[in-house]
C-alpha cells in the first residue's frame, strides 16, 4: 500500500500532528492547579500503598503493648531513624498497632482491588461490550443492553453486597482446589479469596456504565463522515473498531474511568466495612473505619477514625476532582 505510506509520511510532516490528542490534553491538564495537586496526591498515596511493606515504619501485625491507644506522637530527639521508626504518626489502635502503618496497608488493598476491577470490569469487559453493542447493533445490542439493565435495576449496591456475601464460600472452594491441584501454594494465607470475592463483586457493577457510554459514543461516531469513508473503501471490522471508532471515543472513557474510580474506592470500603471484604488480620480501611466509628471510640480515641477516614476521603476526592478537570480538558463543549 504505497498510498497509505505516503499519507502517513505527509501527515507526520505537519507540525501539529506530531503530538497526539491525549498528550495535548495532558499538557493542558497539568496547567490546572487542582488537577496537578490531585495527581501528585494520588501518586503519593498509591506509591505509599503499593510499596507499603517498604514504606511503612512498622509491621502491621506488631503490637506495642506499652503504647496501646496512644494519640499521635512524633519522636524528635532520636535522629532521623528514631523519628521514622519510633513515632506513631497517626497514633496506635486498641491492640497497640501503629495506625499509620495499618492505613498504608489498608490503602494497598483498596488500591490493588480498585485498579484490578477497573481494568477488568470497566475497561476490558465494559469497553468491549459497548463496542460490540454499538457497532453490530440488532439482537446482540439488545441482549447486552437488556442484561445490563437487569444488573442496573438492583437498588443501590445491593447486588454487590449480596454477591460478596454469597460468593465467598464458593470462591474459597476454588482457591483450595487450585492449591491442591496445581503447584500454587499458600494462596489461602495470602488472602487471594478476599481479593477474588471483592473484585468479582466490584466488576459486576463496574461494567454497565462504561458499556452504555461506549455504546452511545459508537452509535454517534458511526454516522461520522470518516467512518463512512472507511467503510466505503472496505476497511475490515477490527480496523473500523480499533482505528476509526475506539480512538475517537477515548476522551469520555478517560473521564469516566477517573470519575468511577472514586465510587469504586467507596464501594470497596463499604464491603470491608460490612465485614464481607478483606478479612482481618489483614488491615482494611473499611474495618478500621468500622472500629473507629463506635461512640466510645469517638469519645475517647477519635484518631482511630481520623487516619483511615482522611485516607479514604483523599482518595475519593482526588479521583473526583481529577475527573472533573479531565472533563474540562477533554470535553471542551461542556466548558
Amino acid at each position, binding site marked *: 500500500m504505497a498510498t497509505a505510506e505516503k499519507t502517513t509520511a505527509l501527515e507526520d510532516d505537519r507540525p501539529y500532528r506530531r503530538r497526539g490528542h491525549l498528550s495535548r490534553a495532558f499538557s493542558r491538564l497539568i496547567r490546572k492547579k*487542582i488537577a496537578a495537586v490531585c495527581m501528585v496526591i494520588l501518586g503519593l498515596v498509591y506509591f505509599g500503598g503499593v510499596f507499603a511493606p517498604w514504606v511503612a515504619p512498622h509491621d502491621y501485625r506488631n503490637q506495642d503493648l506499652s503504647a496501646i491507644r496512644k494519640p499521635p506522637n512524633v519522636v524528635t530527639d532520636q535522629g532521623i531513624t528514631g523519628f521514622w521508626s519510633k513515632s506513631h504518626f497517626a497514633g496506635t489502635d486498641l491492640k497497640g498497632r501503629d495506625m499509620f502503618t495499618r492505613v498504608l496497608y489498608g490503602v494497598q488493598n483498596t488500591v490493588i482491588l480498585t485498579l484490578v476491577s477497573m481494568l477488568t470490569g470497566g475497561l476490558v469487559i465494559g469497553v468491549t461490550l459497548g463496542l460490540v453493542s454499538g457497532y453490530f447493533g440488532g439482537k446482540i445490542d439488545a441482549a447486552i443492553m*437488556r442484561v445490563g*439493565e*437487569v444488573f442496573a*435495576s*438492583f*437498588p*443501590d*449496591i*445491593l*447486588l454487590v*453486597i*449480596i*454477591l460478596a*456475601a*454469597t*460468593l*465467598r*464460600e*464458593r470462591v474459597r472452594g476454588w482457591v483450595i482446589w487450585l492449591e491442591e491441584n496445581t503447584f500454587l501454594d499458600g494462596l489461602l494465607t495470602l488472602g487471594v479469596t478476599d481479593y477474588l470475592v471483592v473484585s468479582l463483586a466490584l466488576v459486576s457493577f463496574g461494567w454497565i456504565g462504561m458499556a452504555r457510554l461506549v455504546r452511545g459514543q459508537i452509535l454517534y461516531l458511526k454516522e461520522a463522515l470518516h467512518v463512512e469513508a472507511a467503510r466505503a473503501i472496505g476497511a475490515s471490522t477490527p480496523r473500523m473498531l480499533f482505528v476509526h471508532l475506539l480512538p475517537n471515543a477515548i476522551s469520555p472513557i478517560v473521564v469516566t474511568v477517573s470519575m468511577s474510580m*472514586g465510587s469504586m474506592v*467507596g464501594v470497596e*470500603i*463499604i464491603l470491608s*466495612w*460490612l465485614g464481607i471484604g478483606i478479612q482481618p488480620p489483614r488491615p482494611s480501611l*473499611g474495618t478500621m*473505619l*468500622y472500629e*473507629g*466509628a463506635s*461512640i466510645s471510640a*469517638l*469519645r475517647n480515641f*477519635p484518631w482511630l*477514625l481520623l487516619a483511615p*477516614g482522611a485516607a*479514604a*476521603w483523599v482518595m*475519593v*476526592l482526588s479521583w*473526583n*476532582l481529577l475527573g*472533573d478537570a479531565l472533563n474540562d480538558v477533554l470535553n471542551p463543549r*461542556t466548558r
Partner: protein
Amino acid sequence: MWKYIARRVLWLPVLLLAVSFVTFALGHYGPGDPVAVMMGARYDPDSAATKNLRRELGLDRPFHVQYVDYVSHFVRGDFGSSLSLHRGQPVRELIIKKMWVSAQLAFAAMLISLAGGLPLGFFIAHRQGRWHDPTTVTITLVLMSVPVMVSVPAMTWLMCLKLSWVSCSGWGGLFDLRIIVPAITMGVPGIAGLTRLMRASTLDVMGQDFIRTAQAKGLGALTIDSRHVLRNAIIPIITVLAFSLAGLIGGAFITETLMGIPGVGRLAVDAIFARDFPIIMAITLIGASAFVLANLLADLAYAVVDPRIRYS
C-alpha cells in the same frame, strides 16, 4: 409515543422476573443454610427435626418449584414470612413499617439537597466564568467525596459529643432532632449533582431567544429570572426527583446501620447476614420495581413538560 410507552410497560415484568431470578439463584446456590441459622447449635443435618423444619418451610423442593412458587405468591402480594431475623412475621408488614422510616429520612435528605443545590446552581449560572463558578463546583465536590462511613461518625462526633445538640443515635421520626445527622450526611452529597444540573439547565435557558426578547422588551432582571429562566430551568430537575423517589424506598445501608435507624437499608444488611431470603428477595424486588418505574415516569414526565421531546 403510545407504542413506546406500551413497549416500556411490557418490558417491566420481564426485567423484574430476571432480577428476581438472579437474586433467588444467588440465595439458593450460595452458601449459608437458613435452616442451619434458625436451629443454631441444635443443627444436625440428619436429624428428624431438621428435615421436618426444612419440609415445613418448603426448602426441600427443587429449585424451579421453589422459584415458581415464590413468584406466584409475590405477584399476589404475599411476600412470605421471615425465616430467621423476625421469625414467622409476614415480610410484607415488616417491610412496609421499615419503608415508612426510610422514606421519611430520604425525604428530609432530599429537602436538604434541593435547598442547597437549586439556589447554588442558579446563582453560579449567573456568575459564569467568574471565580464563584469553579469555586462553588469544587466545594460541592469536596463535600460530596466524603464517604458515608467517615461523614456519619464525624458528624456524630461534632453534633453529639462536642456540641451536645442531639443525642448520638436512634430514631424518632421526621420531627425528631435525631434526624439531623443522618439527613445532613445523606443530603449534602446530593447538593453537588443538583448544583451542576441546575447550573447547566439555567445556562441553557439563558441562552435562548425568548430570554433575549424579554430583555429587549425592557423587562427587569428580576422578572426575567423568576418568570422565564427559573420556570424553564427547573424542568430537567424533575428527572432527578423521580430517581430520588426510588431512593425513598431503597433506604441507606450504611447510614441506617451506623445511626441505629430501623429502616429498610438496615433490614437488608441484617437479612443478608442472617440468610433471611424472603426479606432479601422482597427488598430487592420492591427496590428494583421502584427504580424502573421511576425511570419510566421520569422519561414520560420529560416528554410531557417539554413537548419538543418525542420518543419512538
